[in-house]
């Protein structure tokens, strides 16, 4: 990472992307126009409110708060929507197939490109926030809002803006056409707009109650730290995913992502256990299990879309020794390794959930820590059903992914690997839609029919009225998985056997980085 230190500060140079992007941004009409517009709005609002107040005889004790309530959505709109769209839009344009003019023919690493884009966006955010901060602090003088509330809300808005920015960069890196990106980006944009609304509502609540008095208590820090932690996890994932997406196809794209996901899995597990034991409740475990299952289902889809081919570049880095190689199999790019890694984490998740929710292992931990058992009475019956539903969902997802993999390999091998992932989505969707379509044409489709048992329909698990059918679904999913494993077993073994290091040919060793001499 290119960071200035005491040793290198004389020779240190900033990320080239930051230099270029900022040069362009300060000359861009979009940025300067927005900044000027932003300043004009802030000024007019302030003047408008002050003039309005001058017509009243009694002083408004909450004038500062009222002005602030207007400033914050404007700032949020810029931070959550404008700057992410500006940075993401530029990156999307550069990623278009026809545009070879930019970064991808230089020796800049994927990580530096993404970091450069992110830093440029952050600098722009700092610029807009710096412009807004004096106006916001000024509202404190007009009463109705305390300084800690101003600063806390500014920090929250800034952190959410950085997260929005990283989301936009991640979406821009997706290997899709401009239209498809727009299609994905629109709901994301809608979410950002909703976030502006949420931010405004949250700020009104905070201003009403005042933050200053709560700063020394866990009532503030508990949710604040939790939200920051979740935001950081999301940010980290999207940052690494964006880097992986712009990395060359021959690179081991999966390694940083799977390592990160494993680390996050372990860290969140430990935190959840601590929370459950300390608070004497099982809800955190249930929430963590649900969240982890959702992530693992997404990981299944990504894994089957990775393909089987491992470039010589990846194979050269496969460890020689047996145990290291066995471990590396789970973390290297490739569908087989990805499926194995996901399955392993899923088993560990299920095992832990079962130990916590059924065997009451947490009870002893909780008793030791907080002196009370960790099982909430009302939660007991629900926990078994939750486990069953989650495990069935995962098994169905696994089965469909295995079928998708088989269909791709057997019938459409010339198509790109993402075809397997698309099949894995299309199959359950078809199985969920087609029977109901038939019922519709037979004039037998009703809400009752939709809530009846429909084995193989992944969505039926949630829609089903009679929860006792969950066991039937689980058995069905298990049988489907067994069939899927049978169809792919030989392929998996072949992939495992092929996971051996490649001996580097002497001629193929690239020479060390040469510093090009100046042209004569």
């Amino acid at each position, binding site marked *: 990472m290119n960071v200035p230190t005491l040793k290198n500060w004389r*020779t240190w*140079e900033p990320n*080239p*992307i930051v*230099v*270029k992007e900022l*040069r*362009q941004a300060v*000359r*861009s009409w979009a940025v300067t126009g927005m900044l000027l517009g932003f300043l004009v709005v802030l000024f007019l609002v302030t003047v408008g409110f002050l003039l309005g107040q001058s017509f009243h005889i009694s002083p408004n004790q909450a004038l500062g708060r009222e002005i602030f309530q207007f400033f914050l959505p404007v700032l949020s709109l810029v931070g959550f929507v404008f700057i992410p769209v500006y940075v993401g839009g530029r990156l999307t344009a550069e990623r278009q197939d*026809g*545009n*070879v*003019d930019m*970064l*991808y*023919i*230089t*020796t*800049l*690493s994927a990580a530096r490109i993404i970091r450069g884009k992110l830093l440029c966006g952050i600098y722009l955010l700092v610029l807009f926030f710096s412009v807004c901060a004096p106006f916001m602090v000024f509202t404190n003088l007009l009463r109705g809002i305390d300084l800690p509330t101003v600063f806390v809300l500014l920090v929250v808005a800034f952190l959410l803006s950085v997260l929005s920015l990283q989301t936009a960069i991640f979406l821009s890196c997706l290997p899709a056409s401009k239209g498809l990106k727009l299609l994905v980006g629109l709901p994301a944009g809608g979410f950002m707009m909703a976030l502006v609304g949420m931010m405004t509502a949250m700020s009104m609540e905070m201003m009403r109650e005042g933050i200053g008095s709560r700063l020394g208590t866990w009532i503030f820090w508990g949710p604040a730290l939790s939200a920051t932690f979740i935001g950081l996890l999301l940010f980290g994932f999207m940052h690494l995913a964006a880097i992986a997406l712009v990395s*060359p*196809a*021959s690179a081991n794209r999966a390694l940083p992502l799977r390592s990160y996901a494993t680390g996050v899995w372990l860290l969140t597990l430990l935190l959840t256990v601590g929370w459950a034991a300390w608070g004497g409740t099982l809800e955190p475990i249930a929430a963590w299990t649900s969240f982890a299952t959702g992530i693992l289902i997404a990981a299944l889809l990504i894994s089957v879309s990775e393909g089987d081919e491992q*470039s*010589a*570049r990846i194979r050269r880095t496969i460890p020689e020794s047996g145990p290291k190689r066995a471990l590396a199999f789970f973390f290297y790019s490739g569908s087989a390794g990805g499926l194995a890694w996901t399955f392993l984490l899923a088993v560990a998740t299920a095992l832990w959930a079962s130990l916590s929710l059924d065997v009451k292992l947490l009870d002893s931990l909780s008793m030791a820590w907080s002196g009370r058992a960790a099982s909430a009475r009302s939660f007991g019956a629900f926990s078994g059903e939750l486990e069953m539903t989650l495990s069935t969902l995962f098994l169905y997802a696994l089965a469909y992914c295995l079928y998708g993999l088989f269909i791709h390999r057997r019938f459409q091998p010339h198509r790109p690997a993402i075809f397997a992932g698309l099949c894995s989505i299309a199959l359950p969707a078809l199985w969920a839609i087609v029977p109901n379509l038939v019922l519709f044409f037979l004039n037998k489709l009703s809400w009752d029919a939709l809530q009846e048992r429909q084995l193989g329909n992944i969505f039926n698990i949630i829609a089903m009225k009679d929860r006792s059918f969950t066991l039937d679904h689980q058995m069905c999913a298990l049988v489907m998985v067994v069939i899927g494993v049978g169809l792919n077993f030989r392929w998996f073994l072949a992939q495992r056997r092929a996971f051996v290091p490649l001996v580097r*040919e002497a*001629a*193929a*060793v*690239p*020479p060390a*980085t*040469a*510093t*090009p*001499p*100046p*042209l*004569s």
Partner: protein
Amino acid sequence: MKVQVRGLHKRFGKTIAVDNFTFSFDNGHVFGFVGPNGAGKTTTMRVIATLEEPTEGDVLINGVSVREEPEYARRCVGYVPDSLPAHNDVTVHEYLDFYARAYGLQGAKRREAVGAVEEFTGVTGILDKHLKALSKGMKQRVTLGRALIHNPDVLILDEPAAGLDPRARVELRELLMVLATQNKAILISSHILTELTEICNGVVIVERGRLLESGTVAEVLKKSTPHRAFAIRVLGEASALVKELLQTPHVINAREVSGEVLLELEGEESAGCELLATLISKGFKIAEFKQSKANLEDIFMNVTKGGVQ
């Protein structure tokens, strides 16, 4: 620095853009890459520049695969695409400076490299101009400068002369001739074959994704035109000469075109001398007798069938 294209395949859906291309070029070689639109030239060049992943096959630069070590290839290759830079809000100097930074050049070395490239490409007078305000010829110079900023050993130029006026073309050709003397391996595609004839010592001819011929110009010339062509201007009746020539051994073909007699002759170089002596001895008044040298255009027309995809 040797560039070897080995069994290169590239498919876009059902379209085969490049079908088993194999050729190589070396330091000091200027290879012309010719073919009609849709022949696979740009795709091949993009693969060499690491912008496209081949479906099969590989390109080796000094024995190092561009698939496996794209970072290495990027250090060695300078690529001039067929599109010109279209950045808003960037001056010529900033543009070149950015690329120098992107290639890892720092401090004085970067300033030196940028200065040298600006001087070499002749853009010193327009350094503060915005890219958007430049003419096509000047943009092309800037693009060439960008490709040269890290002093690559391999230069890939995709239609660098397209859309340029005659003066800009001549200037570009002169720049390329200087680069050729700097021992760089250059692959250049162009539709203007006469331009290539003057600077290329090798040629790769492709059509509809298939490689038709490759090698040095002399080799390809020999393969594509096995007979020697001559043009004769005779004082008096040309038709009598045509009649005589058609009865002469080793003469493949003879016809009258605009007062000249064009013919094709089998055999070595001395066959031409012998024919001239024979004609003089038979009383023909030969005013002019010259061997027509085939150029890239002739080779191209001989080898290709005019198909596009």
